[in-house]
């Protein structure tokens, strides 16, 4: 079983890429369908992510939820002052595996594997914003052994350490100045680092003042992914500016997230839920890349903390069918003037839906659907520096418009 699980993870990881922005809120098919609420919901093993405290209230002895989504992300860019057009289309496959086992009446153990952060953006090589990014592929898998303890029917708490493992691959041109180019292709550098690991934790508690109302609180810690001795590979350098390949060190923070929320069982069949996320993005002040050859590239990011407001509902129609729907509003951590095409993400509204088809009391199939709507936005990145002159580059900006669509499927097995 254990061997099979790890094989599955690696098979998925090799094809895992993510959509624009680098927090990807797809951590369970049932909860995604409910607007990705879940801090105060006890539905399935997915609670191992949303609030480990909830695991102790799962009815069955064993619960397994395995799911994945196909994430279609599209970003369009244009600038009518210079008649520029560019686009980035990406497909990602966030996935999750959750298992819980009721050790005793009051103690439940579990394992959660999920992919909460990632980014994949791929513009045309040497496009107008190539000095900021040509392409980026950031992957992170969180592995979280978890326990949950209940104190009667009113209160529970739980948590577990997180082992985060990730990789990053990033390519950009050294300069927008054609001076640094060879045969018409801009000089570029690829930063590649794999097998980055770091530790964090996920804790929560749940309080059930009545049989219908649950309150939940969850805190997932910050994790700094420290790339050390990654490969910096240069290409298309002009004859007069040959730079030997070198190494690089860089830190990428995966921010802490605080979630609080409630759910209310309106009738036997009908549940509503509200979640509030507060993400501590301000840890991401700049992307500071130190190269093995002594040079350094400091890229201000200046992210701000963000709030996300989520609403979800679930209706159990009969033994076979359960329907879910949700909505959320997601702020962007990117401030004006820091809108880099590497994470071209402005605030969005998510519309979600889904259903469960329960084949039998043990085995069910979950379907989910996410549509993220972004308004078009005029913004720019104003803080890049030209390595030739050492002076500021002209601002790079225009109008961006993104959309994200993601159907997902999952299975649950419990007894």
């Amino acid at each position: 079983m254990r061997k099979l699980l790890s094989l599955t993870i690696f098979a998925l990881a090799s094809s895992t890429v993510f959509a624009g922005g680098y927090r990807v809120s797809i951590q369970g098919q049932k909860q995604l369908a409910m607007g990705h609420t879940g801090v105060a919901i006890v539905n399935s093993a997915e609670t191992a992510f949303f609030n480990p405290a909830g695991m102790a209230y799962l009815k069955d002895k064993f619960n397994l939820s395995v799911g994945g989504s196909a994430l279609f992300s599209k970003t369009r860019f244009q600038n009518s002052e210079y008649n520029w057009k560019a686009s980035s289309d990406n497909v990602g496959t966030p996935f999750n595996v959750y298992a819980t086992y009721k050790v005793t009446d009051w103690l439940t153990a579990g394992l959660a594997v999920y992919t909460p952060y990632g980014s994949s953006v791929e513009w045309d090589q040497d496009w107008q914003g190539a000095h900021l990014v040509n392409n980026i592929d950031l992957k992170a898998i969180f592995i979280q052994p978890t326990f949950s303890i209940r104190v009667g029917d009113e209160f529970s708490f739980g948590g577990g350490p997180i082992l985060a493992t990730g990789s990053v691959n990033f390519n950009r041109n050294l300069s927008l100045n054609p001076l640094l180019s060879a045969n018409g292709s801009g000089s570029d550098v690829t930063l590649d680092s794999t097998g980055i690991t770091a530790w964090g934790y996920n804790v929560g508690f749940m309080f059930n003042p009545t049989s219908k109302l649950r309150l939940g609180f969850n805190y997932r810690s910050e994790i700094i992914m420290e790339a050390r001795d990654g490969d910096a590979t240069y290409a298309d350098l002009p004859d007069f500016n040959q730079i030997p390949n070198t190494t690089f060190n860089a830190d990428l923070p995966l921010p802490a997230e605080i979630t609080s929320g409630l759910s209310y069982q309106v009738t036997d069949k009908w549940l509503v839920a509200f979640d509030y996320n507060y993400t501590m993005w301000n840890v991401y002040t700049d992307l500071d890349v130190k190269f093995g050859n002594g040079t350094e590239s400091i890229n201000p990011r200046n992210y701000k903390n963000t709030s996300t407001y989520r609403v979800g509902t679930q209706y159990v129609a009969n033994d076979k069918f359960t329907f879910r729907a949700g909505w959320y509003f997601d702020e962007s951590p990117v401030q004006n003037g820091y809108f880099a095409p590497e994470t071209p993400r402005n605030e969005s509204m998510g519309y979600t839906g889904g259903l469960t088809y329960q084949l039998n009391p043990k085995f069910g199939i979950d379907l989910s659907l996410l549509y993220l709507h972004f308004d078009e936005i005029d913004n720019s990145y104003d803080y890049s520096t030209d390595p030739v002159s050492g002076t500021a580059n002209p601002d790079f900006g225009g109008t961006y418009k993104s959309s994200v669509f993601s159907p997902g499927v999952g299975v649950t097995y419990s007894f």
Partner: protein
Amino acid sequence: MKNKFIYLSVLAMAGLVSCEPEFENAVDANYTAGEADFSSYVAVGNSLTAGYMDGTMYKSGQANSFPNLLSQQFATVGGGVFTQPSYEEDVNNLGGISGIPGFGTRRVINFATSAPENIAGTSTITLTPQATAYNNMGVPGAKSFHLLVPGYGNPANFPAANPYYVRHATSNTATVLGDAMTKNPTFFTNWIGANDVLSYATTGGVGVDQTGNFNPQTYGPNDITDPTVFAGVYSLIVNGGTSPAFGAVTGLSQNGAKGVVATIPSVTSIPFFTTVPYNPVTAAAVGGASNITALNAQLYGPLKQALTAFGAGSRINLLSATAGNPLLIKDESLTNLSAQLTAAFTPTLGAATAAFYGSVFGQARQATADDLVLLTTSGVIGTAPTGVPAPLDKYGVTYPLQDQHILIPSEQLAIANATNAYNAAIKSIAASKNLAVADMNAILGVLVNGLRSVNGQIYTANYFSGAATENKVLFSLDGVHPNSRGYAVIANEIIKVINAHYKSNMPFLNPSYFPGINVVATN
């Protein structure tokens, strides 16, 4: 029922997957030609129109000629095909013209020496006739009246013919303007006239100011064209008409074409005249303070003493060991004191040497901030004049720089007067036809203090001086012509003029994405 539901769901999902993010307004939603018609755009002019840079025409440079860049923007508002003279022969992108002295390869920065040099290699550009009229009819070296001269492209007429026009003249009797008009322009740019004064300036004023001489047939290559002749020729080019000298001429705007005419920049905004300081003679430059002392004792002191006796002591001052000293130059506008100096020096130097000194220093003086030292003179300073023995074997220090090395104030005045007169004529002829004017004189004047472009980048009229300022430099390594980035700035300025005058709206170029200098690892 159930199948139908699934079918519809699949359709809806497929629709969402392919759902394209759409902008409220397409990138080109507001682009318009306005009152202009860009379907046949023709550019006439000289090297600035041809895309000349780094001292020559070469393939990759020509691709960034301002008319070619403009035509790419015109294409967003109905512009048609734009053709340029072929440089396919320039397979190694070297420029120059094969077999003609003085037409060397393009200038590059040699990274190994950090100096501008002609790129190594032999030009493969020939005078093989293409016999084709192109949309870009910029002919490097052409003066205003050359556009109307039949046979300007006839190789039998060398040296009066122009090798660049020889390459593409449609016949041995064709005129540049006549070839241009075969393209039936609906829109034109006309930036001619700079060479009518600039060739005088870039040769240090050795030519003649022909103001008052109305017959351009008698002009030398480095003379200043008479402003009345210029105005007449310019009117013919734009308006057409008949003249005794050129017969019946069809002008650019005669068939209703709209266009832009450009004024002629002042020489003080061109790095060719502003890069080399008038006072580079420091103690370090002459090999130490002891050499300054020696120069004062042996040459400057006696010279000043003698000149003072003749009431001209202000021409020479003793050299300073601590500050930059001015170059020694010949000013042909000064009273020639050769005889007096010869007489004064004879007792100490002997008759023969005294006569030589007298002839060398008779009109010598030290340069001032009002003199402009040509860029090419930087390679002359300190070198030995032909056949001159020590100690007078150092140009600018012990031997006066000559007329061709310096623009003295009287020459600058002649240039400024002609430039102003030409620009007045250009503006008045444009006004009479309601043509747009790109005031390149004013635009390049702004560059002297730094021009802030719409993207926030600041550009200057400085000559290349290293990596730290490279992204601000708009002039190529010949010091006279813009580089590709500079031509993009010029195209933008013309677009501004067109947008304002003809109520057009078309996109700009972003000059930051165009190359400034060209660097080779070794040469």
